[in-house]
């Protein structure tokens, strides 16, 4: 019963956060000093253009009313119409989001072995040459900004070893093979950035578990190292890693912006950049809100997972 109440309050908290996010986005975009129109076009805007934009954004109605109307639309999952293209935002967003979802899914498929295998090796060979070597490599990768990493991979696999296309431009007529070639570079970049974070967490988590009494017990019972690692240590080290993975999902929303820009992949990230560069107000609001919701949902799922997986957590309070 208690656990149900905890889960419910955690879900409610997420909804409240999402509501505040919508308020922040709306006020940042529309309530800043100076009106939206002149911020969009500078001083070189005719009265006629001004009137068109003001009408499109309903700027003549009070801000509160506009906010509530926007909120009402969002609840029905309708984000309105873009200014630049004059098309429904859902129509514009749909294909971009599905492209990015494919990219994200592939990145996560690569992410799992790329973080589990090095971290396990490090934990087993603790403080050895291999462990320290991997630590140095992860530290260097951790310190390489993702846009630099993406550019370096591009340089390696496009310029020095011309195996992959320089621009990952795909559309609905692209063949499966073209998709694969287009996705390799951005997916590898994203999974590399994500696993570097996870490896460092997972290594420390694994070592802590390996030092615990029940692993000692298993060792004394004569179980093989491999069984101990896979059956006993890894599942227990996964709980702290769950939070890192949630953070990684959140990173992914910003990461796709960078990586999609580097390879020219037509996804959610590229759309976000375009929306911001053109100051397409409804599209900005939609993309930022979606990015924030992904973060909130990912954290919610990680917390629910932690509550369900860890009996000790069930007795503690939900607030962090």
């Amino acid at each position, binding site marked *: 019963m208690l656990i149900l109440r905890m889960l419910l309050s955690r879900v409610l908290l997420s909804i*409240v*956060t*999402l509501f*505040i*996010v919508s*308020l*922040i*986005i709306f006020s*940042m*975009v529309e309530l*800043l000093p*100076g009106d939206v129109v*002149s*911020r*969009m076009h*500078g001083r070189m805007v005719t009265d006629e253009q001004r009137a068109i934009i003001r009408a499109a954004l309903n700027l003549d109605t009070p801000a509160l009313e506009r906010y509530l109307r926007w909120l009402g639309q969002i609840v029905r999952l309708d984000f309105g119409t873009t200014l630049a293209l004059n098309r429904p935002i859902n129509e514009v967003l749909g294909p971009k989001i599905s492209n990015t979802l494919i990219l994200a899914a592939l990145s996560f498929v690569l992410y799992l072995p790329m973080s589990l295998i090095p971290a396990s090796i490090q934990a087993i060979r603790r403080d050895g040459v291999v462990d320290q070597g991997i630590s140095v490599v992860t*530290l*260097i990768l*951790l*310190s*390489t*900004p*993702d*846009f*630099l990493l993406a*550019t*370096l991979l*591009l*340089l390696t696999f*496009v*310029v020095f070893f011309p195996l992959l296309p320089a621009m990952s431009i795909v559309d609905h007529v692209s063949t499966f093979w073209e998709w694969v070639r287009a996705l390799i570079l951005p997916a590898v970049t994203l999974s590399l950035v994500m696993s570097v974070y996870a490896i460092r967490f997972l290594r420390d988590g694994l070592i802590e578990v390996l030092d615990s009494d029940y692993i000692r017990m298993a060792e004394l019972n004569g179980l093989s190292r491999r069984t101990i690692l896979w059956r006993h240590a890894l599942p227990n080290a996964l709980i702290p890693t769950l939070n890192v993975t949630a953070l990684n999902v*959140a*990173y992914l*929303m*910003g990461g796709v*912006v*960078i990586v999609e*820009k*580097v390879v020219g992949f037509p996804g959610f990230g590229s759309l*976000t*950049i375009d929306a*911001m*560069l053109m*100051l397409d107000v409804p599209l*900005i609001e939609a*993309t*930022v809100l979606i*990015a*924030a919701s992904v*973060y*909130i949902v990912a*954290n919610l799922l990680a917390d629910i997972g932690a509550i369900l997986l860890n009996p000790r957590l069930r007795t503690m309070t939900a607030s962090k």
Partner: protein
Amino acid sequence: MKISLVGDAAITKSNSWRVRYARMWRESPRSFRIGFMILLFWVVVAIVGPFLAPFGPTQIGTGIPLSGASWEHPFGIDQLGRDVFSRVIHGAHIVLLLSISATLCGLVIGSFLGLLSGYIGGWLDEIIMRVSEAMISIPFLILAMLIVAVAGPQWSGNPILVIVAVAIVYIPRTTRLARAASLDIITKDYITIARLRGEPSLSVVRREMLPNATGVLLVEFATRAGFAPVLIGSLGFLGFGMRPPTPEWGLMISEYRELIFLSPVTLAGPGISLATLVVGLNLCTEGLARMLGRSGEGVSA
């Protein structure tokens, strides 16, 4: 940061400082020493570099454009005939100044809000924490881009805007951390005593809580400062940060990305610089956290 000086009482005052720092240095983890040296290198480059650089940051016609690396132009020459090596050196103080001021702004405002929130509690705490939580939910890069975008074209490329954007990204994160630290501090007796003395809240936060959260906030500062060049570089890379011809490294990487087929060596300058600076900052942070963790009692008590 207080490391005990057992048996050093006899040393004269003027000497004791040097001994103290020398000992701190010797006792510091190796990662901290390496990081500190890298950082020192970049600080020196930032200060004296502009006077020693062979060419100006925007000086054109320094050689044959895109002619690759040579002894006079270790990182090559870009498409406009500018010396990349000189540009990187001239960029050092820009990157460092932007990073430090943005981090400092975020840290000062964030720790003030967090400590106050924890000390006062109640609905103010609730509001500050909910808003911070909501702002953290917006991915940091998208939040920074949003701030730059809504500021409008007249602010484009303004260093103040870049500092503000990064600071706003940092404020809610520091607030949350400072509040967590304050929850531990407010249970201490000296806070109760200060409260009973009738000190106003702001004074308790500044005079009693802030000094006792220094250790946590110092590590936070180092962590954030380590990420600031990346965030500023990302903004520059995406066209939301500094504008050409500013020799900001992220912006340079974005500019020279176009030259990967013609003269890839131009990428080496800003790339290596940015990566080593961040490695240095991260090593320092790691070492600092370990040093403060070891003498943690002296910090929190």
